């Protein structure tokens, strides 16, 4: 028991070890978190009227971010598959950082759901037994199950590995092997269920297309790894963690394949909508060309398309893929492209035009943007603190006290 308390403080102390830039970074994030909290308190008191959402467009920036981040979380699987199943060593060594990213992304997802709720204090109504979870009828109930399950799985794997390393022992695959195997279909499921959440709604023709779930997965496998590639380079630069270039280039190659599929699926959708030209093509017409003179999303959608296509070619050719300038350019383009595509490009056309034909052009209110930035800052802070603990354990600088070791010393 004494050891546990002591170890807890050893872990806690890590948070306070850092140079000037670390403290500046934390202060920078805290500033945005506090701004976000104050905007949220105002929203809580006055209601969601502080946002730009209305009956016509009843989901907006929050749910868009939620959708994007489910994709980021799901993409951790992209690292797990080659790492463990094919024993590709360079990636295996860095899977841990991907899992921590998944934990962060899911936490942010849950925050985005909470800030989107009209009655957040009643969140417990969605739980089984004490609440009245509408399972299996409601896909949102499914989402609660799979997201929380995914969070638990990743927390167990990451912290078990870290714990074993911190007491100077190898982790046992017999213990986490089954969990890792489970996490692969589970990661696919969080994204599939989230896609089905939209997909199952016959009232919204844009969502009610079977291509939605596959496209969701394909674009997630682009944006998630792109974020990881950037994080890996930062981690490598800022600590003694060694990340093999081969791992980075391999992931970039996988992104190229995922983007190829994503673009193909987009093309399939564009063909079907515009060739058949039924009234169900209105949402997509609104996205890419505008409808009845309402064109606010048009530049964004073309930019996203351009970003994604450019990034695809950057990742396709080994020459640009293995050059860090073009690699990072590709990563940034993909993150922006998929963020637009998954956010505005997916949630908005479900509501525009609305079920009675009205076009309400939504663009997020300042208060919504501030809350959103607050949650992103909270996510960045969480990931920073997780790394603050995980990196020294990983490099062997941080070791916990154990009975044996305490014994050795005396």
């Amino acid at each position: 028991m004494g050891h546990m308390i002591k170890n807890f403080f050893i872990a806690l102390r890590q948070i306070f070890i850092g140079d000037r830039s670390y403290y500046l970074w934390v202060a920078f994030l805290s500033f945005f978190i506090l701004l976000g909290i104050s905007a949220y308190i105002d929203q809580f008191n006055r209601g969601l009227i502080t946002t730009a959402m209305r009956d016509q467009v009843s989901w907006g920036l929050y749910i868009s971010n939620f959708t994007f981040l489910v994709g980021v979380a799901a993409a951790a699987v992209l690292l797990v598959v080659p790492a463990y199943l094919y024993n590709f060593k360079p990636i295996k060594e860095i899977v841990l950082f991907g899992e921590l990213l998944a934990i962060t992304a899911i936490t942010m997802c849950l925050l985005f759901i909470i800030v989107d709720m009209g009655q957040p204090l009643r969140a417990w109504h969605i739980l089984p037994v004490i609440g009245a979870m509408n399972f299996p009828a409601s896909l949102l109930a499914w989402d609660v199950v799979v997201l929380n399950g995914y969070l638990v799985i990743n927390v167990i794997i990451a912290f078990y590995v870290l714990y074993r390393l911190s007491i100077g022992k190898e982790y046992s695959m017999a213990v986490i092997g089954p969990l890792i195997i489970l996490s692969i279909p589970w990661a696919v499921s969080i994204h599939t269920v989230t896609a089905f959440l939209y997909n199952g709604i016959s009232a919204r023709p844009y969502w009610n297309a079977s291509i939605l779930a596959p496209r969701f997965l394909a674009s997630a496998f682009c944006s998630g790894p792109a974020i990881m590639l950037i994080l890996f380079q930062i981690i490598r630069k800022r600590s003694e963690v060694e990340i093999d270039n081969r791992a980075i280039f391999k992931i970039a190659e996988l992104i190229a394949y995922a983007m190829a599929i994503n673009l193909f699926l987009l093309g399939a959708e564009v063909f079907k909508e515009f060739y058949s030209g039924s009234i169900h093509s209105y949402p997509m017409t609104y996205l890419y060309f505008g409808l009845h003179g309402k064109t606010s999303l048009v530049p964004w959608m073309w930019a996203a398309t351009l970003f994604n296509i450019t990034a695809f070619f950057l990742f396709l050719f080994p020459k640009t893929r293995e050059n860090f300038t073009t690699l990072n350019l590709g990563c940034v383009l993909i993150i922006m492209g998929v963020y637009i595509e998954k956010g505005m490009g997916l949630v908005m056309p479900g509501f525009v035009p609305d079920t009675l034909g009205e076009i309400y052009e939504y663009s997020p209110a300042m208060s919504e943007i501030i809350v959103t930035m607050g949650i992103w800052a909270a996510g960045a802070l969480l990931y920073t603190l997780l790394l603050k603990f995980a990196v020294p354990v990983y490099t062997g600088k941080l070791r916990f006290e154990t009975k044996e070791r305490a014994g050795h010393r005396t």
Partner: protein
Amino acid sequence: MGKIKKDREGIHCDRRTFLKGAALGLAGTALPLNKADASFWEVFFQKHFREMNEAEIKKVLERLEKEYEQKYKKAIKVGNEKELPGVLFGYGLDLSRCIGCRRCVYACVDENNQSRDPQIHWITVLRFKKGEKWVDLEESEKYYNPELVPEADYFYMPVQCQQCENPPCVRVCPTQATWKEPDGIVVVDYNWCIGCRYCMAACPYGARHFNWAEPNLKPEEINLQTHYLGNRPRSKGVVEKCTFCIQRTRNGRYPACVEACPVGARKFGNLLDPNSEIRYAIEHKRVFRLKEDLNTYPKFYYFFAYGV
């Protein structure tokens, strides 16, 4: 003396409430600290409407009446009339008569205690240009505002909750806060709704409305005869919708919109009664239901009694 003591108790309770709230994580802003509100936890832990027994429901209704009296200084009756046996409500709307005057819209607001600011309307009247594309609703105009109705080149179609037999909104609700009653009315438990708005995404008829802000309702505007599942005052952050005026129709009256219509375009009755007006309309007129391709089976029938 007695009053002071009571106040003290109030403060004490407040502090405890506050600490508990803090433990829940979302404290502070969440709690009505200005009113020493002992019923906060009673409200917080209120059970799902359909899981309460008669005694529990009675207690909740009394508490709500007390809450409303404090808030609006009016004696509001919150009823819980059950469905009538052998009744399945159905609605008919004669498009050949409708003149687009929106009297139904405002009669509904008065009857059902909707927020006046921001405005919430359970009925939307759509205007269409004659001779143009119609049924996809894409060309409709919701905000028409002429000097006089009806206008020569236009016709009108009011849309409200279609009380689907297969309601997509009920299926998607993650907390079972909305359901279809045995007499076919789709209702919402405003004290159970978490405000996720999934039902609004799922409704093909734009019939569900959200309280984006605390509803504004002047005491003198309130309809004092209410139903728990119907027109009782709502709070911010919950979804509401047309209930065929459950507080009226379960007591043998017509919905307010039916009574308000100056041209008799609105028909209402029991679908299970072969002699009802609604059954007559369905059997003798050319009826259709909105977006039938979605298999929602609305109990709201549009028809044309005569040609124009």
